[in-house]
């Protein structure tokens, strides 16, 4: 289709003009990913596995649904274009981030992210600039789908792959994984976990209980196990097995009491916001402290689709940013010494346009800044080159915005590699079609 060729040309043009020096190498994989390169890697990697039992490390993925305007979170205060494109909604009073190296760009932080500043200063938190997918659809749902499945955009469509990237990662386990190895906070199961050996969807630990008003729960579990065990629908049978195992595990742990005890023990040194994100992270922290064998967890924050009056230092988006900052900070404080073992990544499906629209919001864009916190990953820096902001006539085939210089898959695989000490050759299994390039080793 002629449109598609045009589209892929567009990507290259964007990057060629945006890429400066080293960045050009970085921008290659987006347009060239896939192809024959993956096959040999995939074959060699087939025999490789991941020894999840070897460490207590785990990965938490926070997804900001709706396309977060990260230009107002990691603020390019130094760029006059930023203030010119956003006369009303620019963040004028950002908190200066200490420079990580001589000559580094002087980014600012949204004032509502103040709770994260000490983490940045102590080298536990970093930003990765201009991350994104090659998705040109401008659709939330397509871009989220692509990211969670870990695929690419080819021929005008999201390339179908089986399962989610975290599901494929866990499926590589050399040993059996427990029922709480993959947790999806909330009612809906995160797509990225699809294909994992076991998935637990929890809204709160205290709600995980089988309520049989008249019968013995053991008899109920036994009957359910037989009914689902004989079921030919594998998806359904697997979900039931996961659920029954999760029930057993949580019951055996006496987790509810443990959480209560931990809370009493530590007092109120940290304050989780009373939001889905805050309370979800609180429950996750309880699971991590109880050492239930958690390896990956997914949790969402909703509402980032700020087309209309998004505000600046205060206002609509500031509220979401405050929740994110406070939740993440409380999580880190609560984890205490364990935070060296827990890597948290904050992602969104795309960033937003560089300019404000007539209703003082921003429409769908492209690249965004990811946040990485905790674990063994070196922080206190902004990784990646700033691509600059360009005038956007809008009359193009796909939405524009901050250029995408870093393939989200490279970043995610880097994070997994550093968290779980994974062999590099597994990149092509976790992200089929990838030509993996290190991101986090780049100078900030």
């Amino acid at each position, binding site marked *: 289709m002629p449109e598609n060729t045009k589209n892929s040309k567009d990507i290259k043009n964007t990057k060629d003009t945006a890429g400066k020096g080293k960045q050009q190498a970085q921008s290659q994989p987006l347009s060239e990913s896939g192809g024959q390169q993956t096959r040999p890697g995939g074959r060699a990697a087939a025999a490789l596995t991941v020894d999840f039992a070897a460490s207590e490390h785990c990965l938490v993925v926070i997804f900001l*649904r*709706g396309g977060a305007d990260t230009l107002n979170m990691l603020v390019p205060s130094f760029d006059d274009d930023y203030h010119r494109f956003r006369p009303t909604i620019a963040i004028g009073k950002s908190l200066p981030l200490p420079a990580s190296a001589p000559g580094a760009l002087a980014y600012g932080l949204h004032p509502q992210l103040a709770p994260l500043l000490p983490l940045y200063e102590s080298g536990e938190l970093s930003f990765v600039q201009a991350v994104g997918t090659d998705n040109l*659809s*401008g*659709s*939330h*749902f*397509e871009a989220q789908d692509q990211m969670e499945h870990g695929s690419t955009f080819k021929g005008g469509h999201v390339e179908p792959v089986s399962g989610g990237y975290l599901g494929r990662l866990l499926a590589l386990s050399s040993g059996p994984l427990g029922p709480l190895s993959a947790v*999806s906070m*909330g*009612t*809906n*199961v995160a*797509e990225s976990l699809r294909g994992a050996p076991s*998935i*637990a*969807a929890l*809204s709160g630990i205290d709600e*995980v209980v*089988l*309520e049989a*008003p*008249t*019968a*013995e729960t053991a*008899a*109920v579990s*036994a*009957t*359910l196990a*037989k*009914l*689902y065990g*004989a*079921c030919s*629908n594998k*998806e*359904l*049978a697997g*979900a*039931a097995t996961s*659920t029954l195992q999760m*029930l057993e595990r949580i019951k055996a742990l006496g987790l509810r009491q443990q959480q209560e005890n931990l809370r009493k023990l530590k007092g109120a040194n940290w304050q989780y916001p009373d939001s889905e994100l805050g309370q979800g992270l609180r429950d996750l922290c309880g699971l991590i402290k109880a050492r239930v064998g958690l390896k990956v967890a997914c949790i969402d924050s*909703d509402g980032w689709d700020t*087309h*209309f*009056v998004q505000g600046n230092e205060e206002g609509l988006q500031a509220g979401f940013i405050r929740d994110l900052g406070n939740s993440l900070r409380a999580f880190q404080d609560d984890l205490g010494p364990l935070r060296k073992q827990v890597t948290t990544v904050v992602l969104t499906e795309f960033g937003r346009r560089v*300019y*404000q*629209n*007539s*209703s003082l*919001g921003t*429409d*769908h864009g492209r690249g965004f800044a990811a946040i990485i916190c905790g674990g063994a990953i070196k922080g206190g820096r902004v990784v990646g080159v700033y691509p600059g902001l360009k005038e956007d006539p*809008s009359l*193009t*085939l*796909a*939405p524009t915005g901050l250029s995408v210089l870093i393939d989200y898959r490279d970043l995610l695989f880097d994070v997994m590699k550093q968290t779980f000490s994974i062999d590099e050759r597994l990149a092509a299994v976790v992200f089929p079609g990838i030509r993996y390039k290190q991101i986090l080793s780049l100078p900030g």
Partner: protein
Amino acid sequence: MSDSKTVREEISRRRMLYVLACFYGASLTGCELVRSSISQNLGHRIPDSIKSSGIVGSGREVDLDFHTLSRISFGPFPGDLDRLKAMGASYLEEQLHPDSIDDKAADVRVRRFESLEFDMHNMHEFKKEVLRSDMARFTMLKAIYSRRQLLECLVEFWSDHFNISIDKGDCIYLKPADQNNVIRKHALGNFRDLVLGSARSPAMLIYLDGKDNHVSKAGDRPNENYARELLELHTMGVYGGYTQQDVYEVARALSGFKLHDRYRRGEVYFDRSCHDDGPKKILGHVIAGGGGEGDLEQVIDILMKHPSTAHYVAYKLSRYFVSDNPDPQLVKELADTFKETKGEIKPMLRQALASDQFKSSLSRATKFKRPFRFMVSSIRALAGDTNAGAPLVRYLERMGQPVFQYPTPDGYPMESQPWMGTLLWRWNFAMALCANKIESLSVDLPRLGEALNADYSPPKFQNKIFPYLVGRLPDEGERQAFSESKLKEQELLAMILCSPAFQMH
């Protein structure tokens, strides 16, 4: 009308509402009982005898009529299968003409929700929590008790297709009007009316920022939110062949709609000074400059004629009614009908339900029930008596499908995977339901047993009760699981509702 008169009217309405609210608060319990008994006398009860067994031939496959009922309704109510078998093809025709079906019994059940009968200007008199609960209860009660079941299915379908979350802005005050004047009104009508109605619906104008899409001076950038979702989700589908430029041009064409925010609060008007009145080029068609408010209908006409719209609507309807993997040929046939009839919905439904793929045994019981359907079908199967009170609404919230609260415009997912984490809550619901432990909901299992001429003895349980609920005989694994179970009577019945078979439709 003078302003002072409007103010007086407002005040008197306010007072009347207050009185009404007090009256309702005080007399709720008495009213509920009366309603439920009137409704039962009007026919919401278990017939004396249920003849059809739900077994055909060897009983291995789901009975075709049972299959039909589980797709054109939220699951059979006691007696529905007998009725369908007696009526044959005229059953579907009756469902396609809901006005011909007497629905007094359901009407009585939902008449308690005063708030939903007020016009939208006065909705702000109600507390948000009252409206939230009233809408959820109304929707559940209609799905459980309405005899116009196909209509209720389409109401669910279009409510997802044109999803509006009542958690955004003033949507909660305006969604009842959207539901009545757009979704319910045109659910079985013409797709153009649905799209146009939705485009002008105050709730949609808030939800997708249409009311703030203003272009009043050079350099103003339109708000693209609604334009993109109109193309992506409502008409053409994400790969329907539009570009970013088309999105931008549609956003320009639809600029200038606003909502009154004081008197006539919520009503839509067009402000030409905020409309981009220049010429636009959309999907190759030119809309001449100076079209003003008329640009909207021109845009809708362009979209209605685009083959992607016909295909997308045909695909979604086939997916909802026929199979998660609809046959491309079937989708093409429905799309052709869409084109020929300019978007008539009924002919597409007739075609889908008469198709080989629909009737095929491979399509039966292959769709995973979403939580709403799971709960409603359980209550219908057992002829539960309920006012859909707070405990029921909480179950629905807990399973992640609270009414009109899906945050993003794509609507609750049709796929099964996102709902796989809800099994525990389904099991807990089914056990509480059968044990009569849900406040505001009761079931009469002995009476159902009598009507079925069945008890909990293994042969009757497996050959009568199971097929009544699932539409076929238990297979070997199921028989074994039931016969080895330590559970008895209604606990065992609950296991059917918990079983994989009852999660599917």
